[in-house]
Each structure stands twice: as structure tokens, then as C-alpha cells.
């Protein structure tokens, strides 16, 4: 019997020929990522359990990324970044993307921004490897044909000391996305569609593997959006088989050797779902759950107070390019917040052009608020002074990934999750708007 891509990676990492879904196996970890919110706790667990003078298992396989609560005056938040820094120096951690000057992020060449996009951009996401991160959206890296999933501080502290973790082999649900993507649809629409079908717990304990001609045609940015949100369906990891698009992206960013794996033809899948993407329409997830799906055109009457374009899901370069395509030459009707995921994305806003205008010129001319410093910002609410945070019970259309009560701040705020196209179209009218109204 054949194995799925995920089973093959886990088997290799467990030093086994084969594994079966449901088995518990110890795996060797290729990369551990942690950030300013969970890093200090992870370090605390590591020291408590292995001793104050203990050394991490491998200084080259740990990546520390301050990204969540950076541009705030909250003292504890600032202290947490200091804890990361101290630990990085003490352990001589190879990859620590530090920020020391919070007043001007550009003065910190090492500072990246949102961890999941930074990992990809810096060549840490490699086919065939096993990555754990103290963040549920670590599944983002599955877009590169890697096994990547989120864990808590205690598990991460365990890995820091041992380089190993005991995991249950997940069964794989296959999602076959065929057909040509209509010009008004983005992969965000596809994943919101799928989560609407299977619910916020539809993939609990399982892998979601995406395949089909529509996936083959996607850029890495679009593939990441699919895998990023598998956690919103409860999935353990998402995965897309590596191909030439993957290899072009990865080999231009790292020299580390890796091995691509693919699902066997006779692999066993827990389930199969087929979609013809050419038949799908733009969708939103209404408050207060990512599976509360509705067609965008069914929500035309919803008046919004602000639009938010950002996060690891919807703050990548392609998201801003897509938003700019609709916004160029028009005026936004509601405050529109732009939060580039990383410093690289921020730079792209000032260098990439559409019809001779940079993205940032397009946004500013249309009345958007000036792009903020790259970080998680209001995607998860954060301290009260966080950029874009919903401090009032407002209605917001957002390209982020979660809309549970209070996620972006105020408990009564209403968050609609949408693609960058839908967010941009909505910004232009002040009501939830189908991008087809502007994309001809």
C-alpha cells in the first residue's frame, strides 16, 4: 500500500519504512520556530526542565522571530522581545530576526515581520522537512511540500532540548481543485469555501492535501493562503506537492539540500472532495466564525466601518498587488488599513508598479491610511495601542484568518473575512462588495 506525502515525510523523520494514520511516532525535527508571544514561555520550560545552563539541541535549527507585539509601548511585550534576544545571544542561535529600534523599523535590517511569511521568504520552508512552530498558522509552510504544524510552549521546550517530538500520524483528506481560476477569484475564496463546506472542525487531527490543475497554476503566495488556513478547519497540517514553482522559490532562497516527496498513486486518503473552481464565486466568512460562509453578493447590504488588509494570510505582496488593481484611480470610502506582513513586502509596496505608479502611491492617492510597520498588528487584537485594532464595536472586512468574538479587539466588533479583491472592492463603496463590480 502506498503512502501520502505527509505519511512519507513523517516516516522518514521517524526512521521508518512506513507509517499508518493513527500511530504515535517520535520524529526528528528539522526546524523549530518560535516568536515573541510564545518564545519566552518556551525558553522558560526549556530551562526549567533541562537546567539553567542547558544548551539547545541545535543552534542552526531554531528560528526566533519577533513579530506579534512589536510596535507598542506595552512594557511586558517589549520585555518579551528582550528575553528572545538574551536567549539568542546566550545560545548563539543562528537565525534571530531582531528589532532594537522600534521607532524606525527600517533601521533594523534583520527585522523581518510576520513569522510564517518571513520563514518562507528567508528559505526556511523546504520540501520534505518537518517543522514545528509555537503558532497555529505554522501550517502555512505546507505550501512548500513540508510537514509543518503548530504546537504549544511545553512541546516546543521539549524540542529545544531534544530535537524530537512524539506525534500521531494524521490521515489525509484530499481536496482536488480543478479548472481555471476566474479573474475575480483568489485562493482565499477557495479556502473559505472549503471551510464553509467542512466546518471549523472538519479536518481535526487530519492533513488537508490540495491538488488539481488550479493548484498547479497558483503562485507560492496563493498556495500559502490555502495552507495557512487549514487550522481554521481544525487541520493538523496542509500540504501541496512540490513542483517547479516550489523549487524556483525555494532554491533561490536557500542552499540547504532537501528532498521532495509526493503522494503515491495508490496512497490511501481519508476522503476526496472535488471542486471546479471556474464555477465558484467570491465568498466571505461572516461573524463570528471562519466557517460562517456567504456569497459576497448576498452581503451587499452590510455597511462597514473599516477595511483591513494584512496578516500572514492576506498581507503578502500579491495581496497588495491585487488590492491595488481595484483601488487604482478610485477613492476609498472607509478607513483602509494596510499592514504588510514583512519588511520585504513593505519594500515591495514602494518599488512594485502598476501602470507607472507604485503600490504605495496608488493606495495613498486613493485615501488609504499609510502602510504600517510590518507585524501581526491587529490580526490578533493585541495591546490597546496596536495599529488597526478594533477598539470599538465596529464592522470590519479583513483579509486575515479568524473572526471569533474579540479576535481583532472589541468583543462586539463584527469581522468579515474576505479576499484582497473583496476587501478592496468593499473599501471603495463602504458596503460589502463583490469584486466583479470593479473587475471587468
Amino acid at each position, binding site marked *: 500500500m502506498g503512502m501520502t506525502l505527509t505519511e512519507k515525510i513523517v516516516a522518514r523523520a521517524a526512521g521508518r519504512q512506513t507509517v499508518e494514520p493513527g500511530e*504515535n511516532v*517520535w520524529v526528528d525535527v528539522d526546524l523549530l520556530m518560535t516568536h515573541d*508571544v*510564545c518564545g*519566552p*514561555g518556551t*525558553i*522558560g*520550560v526549556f530551562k*526549567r*526542565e*533541562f*537546567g*539553567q*545552563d*542547558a544548551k539547545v539541541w541545535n543552534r542552526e535549527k531554531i528560528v526566533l522571530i519577533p513579530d*506579534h*507585539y512589536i510596535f507598542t509601548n*506595552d512594557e*511586558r*511585550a517589549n*520585555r*518579551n522581545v528582550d*528575553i528572545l534576544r538574551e536567549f539568542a545571544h546566550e545560545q548563539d542561535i543562528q537565525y534571530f530576526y531582531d528589532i532594537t529600534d522600534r521607532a524606525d523599523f527600517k533601521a533594523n535590517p534583520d527585522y523581518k515581520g510576520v513569522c510564517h511569511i518571513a520563514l518562507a521568504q528567508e528559505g526556511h520552508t523546504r520540501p520534505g522537512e518537518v517543522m514545528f*512552530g*509555537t*503558532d*497555529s498558522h*505554522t501550517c502555512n509552510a505546507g505550501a512548500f511540500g513540508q510537514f509543518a504544524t*503548530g*504546537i*504549544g*510552549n*511545553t*512541546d516546543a521546550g*521539549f524540542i529545544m*532540548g*531534544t530535537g*524530537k517530538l*512524539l506525534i500521531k500520524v494524521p490521515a489525509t483528506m484530499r481536496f482536488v481543485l480543478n479548472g481555471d481560476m476566474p479573474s475575480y477569484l483568489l485562493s482565499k475564496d477557495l479556502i473559505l469555501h472549503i471551510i464553509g463546506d467542512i466546518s*471549523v*472542525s472538519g479536518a*481535526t*487531527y487530519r492533513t488537508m492535501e490540495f491538488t488539481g490543475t488550479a493548484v498547479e497554476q497558483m503562485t507560492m503566495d496563493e498556495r500559502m493562503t490555502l495552507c495557512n488556513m487549514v487550522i481554521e478547519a*481544525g487541520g*493538523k497540517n496542509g500540504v501541496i506537492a512540490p513542483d517547479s514553482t516550489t523549487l524556483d522559490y525555494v532554491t533561490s532562497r536557500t542552499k540547504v539540500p532537501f528532498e521532495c516527496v509526493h503522494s503515491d498513486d495508490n496512497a490511501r486518503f481519508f476522503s476526496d472532495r472535488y471542486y471546479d473552481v471556474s464555477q465558484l464565486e467570491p465568498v466571505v466568512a461572516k461573524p463570528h*466564525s471562519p466557517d460562517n460562509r456567504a456569497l459576497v453578493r448576498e452581503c451587499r447590504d452590510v455597511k462597514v466601518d473599516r477595511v483591513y488588509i494584512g496578516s500572514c494570510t492576506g498581507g503578502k505582496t500579491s495581496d497588495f498587488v491585487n488590492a491595488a488593481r481595484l483601488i487604482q484611480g478610485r477613492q476609498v470610502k472607509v478607513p483602509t488599513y494596510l499592514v504588510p506582513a514583512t519588511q520585504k513586502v513593505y519594500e515591495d509596496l514602494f518599488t512594485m508598479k502598476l501602470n507607472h505608479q507604485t503600490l504605495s502611491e496608488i493606495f495613498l492617492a486613493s485615501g488609504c491610511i499609510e502602510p504600517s510597520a510590518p507585524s501581526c498588528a491587529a490580526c*490578533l*487584537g*493585541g*495591546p*490597546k495601542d496596536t495599529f488597526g485594532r478594533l477598539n470599538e464595536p465596529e464592522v470590519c472586512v479583513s483579509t486575515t484568518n*479568524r473572526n*471569533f*468574538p*474579540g*479576535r481583532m479587539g472589541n*468583543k462586539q466588533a463584527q469581522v468579515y473575512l474576505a479576499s484582497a479583491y473583496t476587501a478592496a472592492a468593499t473599501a471603495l463603496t463602504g458596503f460589502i462588495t463583490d469584486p466583479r463590480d470593479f473587475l471587468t
Partner: protein
Amino acid sequence: MGITIRGKVFVVDDNIDTDQIIPAEYLTLVPSKVDEYEKLGSYAFIGLPDRYGSFISSGALKTEYPIIIAGENFGCGSSREHAPIALGASGVRVVVAQSYARIFFRNCVATGELYPWETEERLCDLFTTGQEVTLEGDRCVIVNHSLGREYPLRSLGEAGPVIDAGGIFAYARSTGMIPLRSPQSAG
């Protein structure tokens, strides 16, 4: 799995996510620091919609409800270990839900902070907050004294011994996966 616990229940329904258990603005608290652990506990469930009533009386650090009853997919959302820890630090010992989000369940087991029991029956529709129950781990049942009925729990399976041991480190030491603590590092 010898835990037996008697106390009042706090009842919530489906898809209680980690932002409702411990909102993001409190995540700057580091759970491995003793005073911040306590503080996390005092904010447990502060993100719940108001209709559930208050979980911790104002000014108190701990809850009077050691047992949570929930519906499907409890603990969905973020991987923040702050969530099971906030509940544990507030004085919760067990959660009884129809199902859990994977990472939350795993964090309960890894930390040994909470017992995440599962039930077939939808207890969140039958129980009301404040009712007195006894959970008997040995027999895998929860007895509701107000209703005068008992309900079966699903076995904790392989997670049980890990939580009993006190979490993944204690468990890994007991099985020889990692060395026993040397005396000087046991601080």
C-alpha cells in the same frame, strides 16, 4: 486516571476558541513565570460573550468552577498554551466536551494542566452553570447531583498516563526517552 473531583460546573457551548479563553491582549504574560501564571488565571474566559455570566468574581484570582462543560471543538484557534494554562491557573481541573481542537488537547496533555475528557452526550445542553457534579476518572463517569443522573465519559486513552505523570517531560523521563533530572538542574 485516578482523578475524582467534586464541584460546580461552568457551561459553554460549541467552538469556544482560544481568544475567548484568554484574549490576545493578555498574551504578554509568560506562563513559566510564577506571578504571571497566577495573573493569567485571573483572566481565564474573560473573552467569553457576556451571556455566559462571570467565570471569576471580580477581584478574585480563582474561579469557583473547577469543571468546564462544553460542546464541540473546544479550544479551537491559536496554539497558545496560555489557554489551557489560564484555565488551570484559575483553578479548573477538568474540561468535559464533545470534542476538542487538536492543539488545545495536545497542550492539555503536554502541560498536564487539565484533563480533557470527552463525552458522547451533549452535556452542554443538559447541564447548567452552578450545578454540582462529581467526576470519577476511574469509572469514566460524571455524576450530576442536581439532575440525579450519571453520564459516561470516553476513556482518555494514551493521554491519561501522560497527564497523570504531570505532562510530557515527566512522562518522557518515566519511559526513558529523556534522562532523569540531575539533582543540580532540578531547580
